[in-house]
C-alpha cells in the first residue's frame, strides 16, 4: 500500500476531470507532494467518466445486465458510491492472463453482452486501467481527502425564531404565536420541531399539503363541472345521482340550482380523492406508505353517492340538508369488488396520467417510478437510440437500445393492467400482453392468481423497497425547499462539473440523513418535513467565503420568490387580508394574476415560474400599492390593541405642528410603529435610530410634508380614494358603524402610512421567503 500526502488535491482532481479525448487521461502517478486516495479517485474519475455514462444503463438492478455480477446502484440511492466501488473492486481483482476483467469486458476481449463499448486507446479505458492498478496497489493518503469536519463550516444558519417564522408561513400561512416563539427560545432546534409538529395538525397545513401535492399529482385539473364524474365507470357507479335529486324543491330553477351544487360537490370530492388521501394519512400520523397501499378511498358525502356508497356510511341522503353534510369533510370508504391501492386507483390519478392501447400503461409506469421509486427511466433514454435502424423482432423486448428502458418499465406497466384508459377497473379478458415483459416487481413476478389485484400487490412491495422513502424524501425536498434536485454532471469534463459533483454528493449526504429519520419515524411525513426545515438548505443565511467550501456555499439557503398561493397566505398573515377589496370579489393573486405570477392551472400550465420576469415584478408593485391602499384605513378602524399594522400610532399623530415645530412624542411613536412594521412585514429587527428606520421614516415624513402642502393648495382632496376608504366590513360588505368609518384623510397621515407600507410590501424580503 502506498501512503502519500494529500496536498494540492483540488488542482490534481480538477486536472483529471478536465481531460478530454484530445488530451487523453493519463495514469495519475501523483508526485509525492500530491495524493488522491482510491475512494476519491473512484468518485471523481471512474464513476462520472466511465461507469455512469457507459455502464449504468444496463448494469443496474432493473437493467438488462441485472443477472450479471456487475450490478450497480444509481446515484439517487444512498451509499451508491461506496457500494459501486466495492463491486468494481471485486471485478477488478478477477483477471485473465494478468489483465483485469474490467478491462477485458468493455473492450470485448472477453464476451460482453453489450458489445464493445470502450476502445483500448480511450480516456475511459485509461481511467479503468488506473483503477485496476489501484486495486492491486491501493493508495491511502496521510490526511484523508474526505472532509471529516462539518461540510457546512463557514455557513451561518438563521436563528431558530426566524426559522420558525419562515416555516410557519410556509406550512400554515400564519405567523408564530408568542408561546411558540418562547418554546423555540427555550429549546432551540428541538423547539422548532416541537412547534412544527403541532402546527402540522392545523387545517391550514392540511390545505397547504394538498396544494403541494397537487403540484405533483395535478389532479385539480378535474375541478369544475362534471370533469371528474364523467370519467367514472358508469356501469359500476351512479356518478350522476344528483340528476334525480332535490325533488322536494318545487321550483324548477331552484331545483336545478341545487342539483348543480350537488354536482359541484360530488365532482370536487371525486377529483380530490388522491389529495385528500395524502392529507388524511398525514393528519392521522399513519405511515406515508399508506398513500399507495390504502385499501380505501377518500370521499365527501356527495362523491360518496357517486361511488354508490350507502347513506349509512356517510353519503348524502335524498332530501338531505346540504348544510348538515359538509362537502369539505372527507372520510374513507371501501369500494366493493374493486382492489383499491391508495392514490394509484383514484380516478383522478389514472386519468391525469392516462394510457392508450399502444402506450400500455408505460406513461403511468414512468410517472410511478419517477415519483415513488426515485427512478427516472427517461434519463436512460438520454443516450442516443436509433429505432429506425432496428430490424429486431419486438424491439422493446429484444433490441438492447430499447430494452435499456423497457426491461425496467414494462413490468411496472403490467401492474396497472386492470385499469383502462379512462381509469376504470376493467381487467382484460385475455390477461396482459404476452409480447411484453411480464408484470413484476424487480425479479418477483406478480403471481397469476394475483393479477386481478396486481396494483395492490405491487404497491405493497414498492413501499418496502428502499427507494420508496428515498423518493418521498426527494419529493418533499422539492416541495418544501422549492428547488429541483441536483443531478450528477452529465459530462464530467465540462466546466463546473467537479463543483456540480461535489454539490450533488453533499446534497445526497444531507438527504440521506433526513431519509433515515423519516424511516425511523415509521415514515411520518411530518417528521420528514420538520427535518428538512432544519437542514442548511432551509436555514442557511450567510457564508464566510474564506471558510466555507464552494459546494456548501452554493447549496446553503433557499431564498425563493413566493408562489401566488404563498404570497396570498403571507399577505393574510401580515395584513389580515388577501389582495382583494372584499371577500366576495376576486382574489387577485389566486385568480386574475395567478398564472401571470408564475402559478399553475394543473392542466396546460403545470410548472411554476420561480424567477421573476418583468410582468411579475410589476404585479408585485401593483399588489403593494393596492393592498397598502385597502388595508391601511381598515386597520385604523380597529382599536389600537387589535391592529395588525399600526398599533403604536393614531391617525392624528403628525410629526410636526402646523408651525413646523417637531412633536417628539409623535415622532417617536411613528418610528416605533415603523420598527414594528419591519418586524411584522419583513421579519427584521432594527433600532429606532438605525438607517433602516430613518429611511422609512423619511418616506413617511416627506410624503406627509408633500401631502400637507398639496392639501393646503387644494391640489388634492381630503377624501381618500374610494378604493382606500374603510366604509364597509370586508367579510359581509355591511356598512361599518358611522363612528368607525374612515373616509377622510385630512392631515395626509393615512396616505403617508400607505407609502411606508407600499415600500415594505414591495420589498425583496416580503416577496421572497
Amino acid at each position, binding site marked *: 500500500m502506498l501512503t502519500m500526502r494529500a496536498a494540492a488535491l483540488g488542482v490534481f482532481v480538477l486536472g483529471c476531470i478536465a481531460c478530454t479525448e484530445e488530451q487523453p487521461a493519463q495514469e495519475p502517478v501523483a508526485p509525492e507532494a500530491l495524493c488522491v486516495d482510491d475512494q476519491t479517485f473512484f468518485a471523481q474519475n471512474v464513476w462520472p467518466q466511465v461507469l455512469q455514462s457507459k455502464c449504468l444503463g444496463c448494469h443496474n438492478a432493473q437493467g438488462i445486465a441485472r443477472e450479471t455480477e456487475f450490478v450497480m446502484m444509481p446515484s439517487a440511492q444512498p451509499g451508491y458510491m461506496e457500494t459501486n466501488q466495492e463491486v468494481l473492486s471485486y471485478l477488478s481483482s478477477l483477471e485473465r492472463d494478468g489483465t483485469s476483467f474490467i478491462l477485458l469486458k468493455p473492450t470485448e476481449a472477453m464476451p460482453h453482452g453489450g458489445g464493445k463499448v470502450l476502445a483500448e486507446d480511450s480516456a475511459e479505458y485509461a481511467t479503468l486501467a488506473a483503477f485496476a492498478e489501484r486495486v492491486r496497489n491501493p493508495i491511502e493518503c496521510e490526511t484523508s481527502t474526505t472532509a471529516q469536519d462539518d461540510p457546512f463550516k463557514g455557513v451561518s444558519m438563521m436563528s431558530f425564531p426566524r426559522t420558525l417564522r419562515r416555516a410557519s408561513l410556509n406550512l400554515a400561512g400564519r405567523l408564530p404565536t408568542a408561546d411558540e416563539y418562547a418554546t423555540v427560545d427555550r429549546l432551540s432546534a428541538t423547539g422548532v420541531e416541537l412547534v412544527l409538529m403541532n402546527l402540522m395538525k392545523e387545517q391550514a397545513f392540511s390545505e397547504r399539503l394538498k396544494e403541494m401535492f397537487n403540484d405533483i399529482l395535478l389532479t385539480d385539473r378535474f375541478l369544475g363541472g362534471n370533469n371528474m364524474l364523467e370519467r367514472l365507470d358508469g356501469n359500476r357507479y351512479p356518478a350522476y345521482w344528483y340528476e334525480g335529486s332535490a325533488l322536494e324543491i318545487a321550483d324548477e330553477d331552484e331545483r336545478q340550482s341545487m342539483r348543480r351544487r350537488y354536482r359541484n360537490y360530488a365532482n370536487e370530492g371525486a377529483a380530490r380523492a388522491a389529495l385528500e388521501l395524502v392529507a388524511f394519512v398525514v393528519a392521522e400520523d399513519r405511515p406515508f406508505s399508506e398513500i399507495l397501499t390504502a385499501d380505501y378511498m377518500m370521499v365527501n358525502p356527495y362523491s360518496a353517492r357517486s361511488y354508490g356508497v350507502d347513506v349509512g356510511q356517510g353519503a348524502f341522503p335524498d332530501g338531505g340538508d346540504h348544510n348538515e353534510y359538509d362537502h369539505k369533510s372527507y372520510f374513507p370508504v371501501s369500494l366493493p369488488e374493486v382492489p383499491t391501492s391508495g392514490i394509484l386507483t383514484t380516478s383522478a390519478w389514472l386519468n391525469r396520467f392516462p394510457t392508450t392501447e399502444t402506450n400500455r400503461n408505460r406513461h403511468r409506469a414512468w410517472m410511478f417510478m419517477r415519483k415513488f421509486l426515485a427512478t427516472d427511466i427517461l434519463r436512460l433514454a438520454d443516450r442516443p437510440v436509433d429505432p429506425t435502424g432496428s430490424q429486431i423482432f419486438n424491439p422493446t423486448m429484444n433490441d438492447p437500445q430499447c430494452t435499456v428502458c423497457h426491461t425496467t418499465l414494462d413490468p411496472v406497466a403490467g401492474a396497472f393492467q386492470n385499469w383502462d384508459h379512462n381509469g376504470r377497473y376493467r381487467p382484460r379478458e385475455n390477461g396482459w400482453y404476452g409480447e411484453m415483459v411480464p408484470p413484476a416487481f424487480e425479479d418477483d413476478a406478480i403471481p397469476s392468481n394475483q393479477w386481478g389485484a396486481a396494483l395492490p400487490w405491487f404497491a405493497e412491495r414498492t413501499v418496502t423497497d428502499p427507494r420508496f422513502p428515498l423518493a418521498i424524501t426527494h419529493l418533499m425536498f422539492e416541495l418544501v425547499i422549492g428547488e429541483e434536485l441536483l443531478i450528477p454532471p452529465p459530462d464530467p469534463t465540462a466546466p463546473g462539473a467537479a463543483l456540480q459533483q461535489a454539490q450533488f454528493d453533499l446534497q445526497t449526504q444531507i438527504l440521506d440523513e433526513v431519509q433515515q429519520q423519516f424511516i425511523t419515524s415509521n415514515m411520518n411525513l411530518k417528521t420528514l418535513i420538520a427535518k428538512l426545515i432544519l437542514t442548511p438548505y432551509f436555514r442557511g443565511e450567510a457564508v464566510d467565503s474564506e471558510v466555507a467550501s464552494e459546494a456548501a456555499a452554493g447549496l446553503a439557503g433557499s431564498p425563493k420568490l413566493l408562489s401566488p398561493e404563498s404570497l396570498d397566505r403571507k399577505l393574510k398573515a401580515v395584513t389580515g387580508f388577501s389582495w382583494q377589496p372584499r371577500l366576495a370579489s376576486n382574489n387577485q393573486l389566486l385568480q386574475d394574476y395567478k398564472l401571470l405570477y*408564475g402559478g399553475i392551472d394543473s392542466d396546460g*400550465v403545470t410548472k411554476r415560474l420561480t424567477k421573476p420576469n418583468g410582468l411579475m*415584478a410589476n404585479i408585485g408593485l401593483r399588489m403593494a400599492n393596492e393592498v397598502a391602499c385597502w388595508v391601511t384605513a381598515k386597520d385604523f378602524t380597529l382599536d389600537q390593541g387589535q391592529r395588525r399594522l399600526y398599533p403604536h400610532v393614531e391617525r392624528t399623530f403628525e410629526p410636526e405642528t402646523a408651525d413646523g415645530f417637531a412633536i417628539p412624542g409623535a415622532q417617536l411613536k411613528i418610528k416605533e410603529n415603523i420598527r414594528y412594521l419591519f418586524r411584522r412585514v419583513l421579519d427584521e429587527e432594527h433600532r429606532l435610530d438605525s438607517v433602516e428606520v430613518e429611511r422609512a421614516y423619511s418616506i413617511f415624513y416627506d410624503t406627509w410634508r408633500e401631502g400637507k402642502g398639496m392639501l393646503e393648495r387644494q391640489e388634492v382632496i381630503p377624501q381618500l380614494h374610494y378604493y382606500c376608504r374603510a366604509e364597509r366590513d370586508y367579510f359581509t360588505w355591511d356598512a361599518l358603524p358611522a363612528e368607525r368609518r374612515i373616509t377622510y384623510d385630512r392631515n395626509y397621515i393615512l396616505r403617508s402610512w*400607505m407609502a411606508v407600507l407600499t415600500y415594505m410590501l414591495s420589498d425583496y424580503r416580503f416577496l421572497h421567503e
Partner: protein
Amino acid sequence: MDRRDFMKLASLAGVSLASPLGLGRAFAADPMLANTPYDGLFFVTIHAGGGWDPTSLCDPKGRENENSADPMNMYFTGDIRTAGNIQYAPVDRFTPIFEKYYQRLVVFNGIDTSTNGHMSGTRHIWSGNLAEGTPSLSALFAGAVAAGRPLTFISNGGYDYTADVVPRTRISNVGALARIAFPNRVDPNNASLTFHSQATMDRIQAARKARRDEAVAHATLPKEKKARSTLFLARQGENELRQLTAFLPEDFDNSNNPLKRQAQLAVASYKAGLTASASLTHGGFDTHGNHDATHIPRLANVLEGLDFLVEEAERQGVADKLVVLVGSDFGRTPGYNMNNGKDHWSITSLMMMAPGIVGNRVIGSSNERHVGHSIDAQTLARNDDGIRLTPGSIHHALRTYLGIADHPVVTPFHISEPNLPFFG
C-alpha cells in the same frame, strides 16, 4: 443607476450583457442599453407538442394504391403536391400556406433526434442537445441579445428551459396587462387617479434602491445575491411595460387556434421593444389513436398559425426581423397501429423562414418508410456515406446565423456536431 451597478447586478443574476456578433442593431454592448428598446432579430419558435407527423406534412409519404399493405398514409403518392421545390401532403388547408411562403421556406427533412421520448425529443429539437442542461435556443438568443429587457423571452410552453440565463414570461391574461403596466394607477385608463403621487413613488423607489444596494453589498449567500439581482433586473422594465399596451391589438383572436393569440402578444411585445424571442405552442399531436382525423387538422392549424404570425409581423411593420422555426418532439411511426394511430418515431422535420436565408429549399431526406438519409457535409446532398442530419448541427448553424455562437452566454453550452453550411 450607473453603468457599473447595472453590470454588477446583472452579473450576479447570471446575465451577461456583452455584445453579440453580427447583430448591428441588436441589444447591445452598452449595458445601459438595457433600457433601450430591442429591435434586433425576432426569434420565434412554433412547437407542435406531442410529436408531429412529417409524412403528413412536409416530408410526404403516400400509398401507391388502395391495396398497399401497411400504408404510410391514406393519401396516394400521386396526389402529393409541390410548391416550388417543396413537396407537401395533399391537404387543402396546407396549399395556400405553402404556395404563399415556399420561396422563403427552408425545410429540413430526415432529422435524427435519436430518441422517441417526449421530454428528450423536445429538448433535443429546441436546444440542439439530447442531454439535459442546455437551454432552449430561444432562451439563449434572448440571453445573448436582450437579457435586460423585461419580457425578453415569452414562453407558451414546450421546451423552455433557461438555465437562468433569462427569466421566462408567460402571458395568460391579456385583460390584466394594462393594470400590470400601470401599477400606480387605480384605473389604468385614468392617468390622474393614482395610489401615490409621482413624487412619493420616486421617493419609495429611491429608498428601495438604497436598501437593495446595501443588501446586495452585504449579502454573502450566493443564492440570495442571485435572487436579489434577478428581482432588480426584472424591475428594470417597470415603466416600460406600458409600451406593450400601445401595441396590443384592439381585438385578440378568439378562434380555436391558440397560436394566433400567442402570436399577437409576442409580436406586440417585440414591437414594444420588450422581447427578443418567443415560443408558441400547439398541443395535441401525440395521436396514438385516430391519427388522421385529429392530427392533420392540427397540422393545418400550425401552418395557419405560422401564416398569422407572419401577417401580424407585417401589420406591425417588423416582418423583416422575424426568424421563425417550426418543429416538434420527433416524428411518428411509419404506418398505422391497431387504433389507426401512429406511435413515436425518432425521425422528424423542421421548417424555417428568416431574413437573408435563401428559401425554396429542402435539406435532408428520408426513404419511403421515413428512415433518414445521411447527407454530405459540404454539399448537403444525400450521401449514404455522409453524416446524419441532427438537431445539433442545425442548432450549430442557427447560432452562427443568429450571431450568438461566440457569445459568452452561449459558449458554455457546447454543441459537438459540425457547423454545416445550411445558411450559406
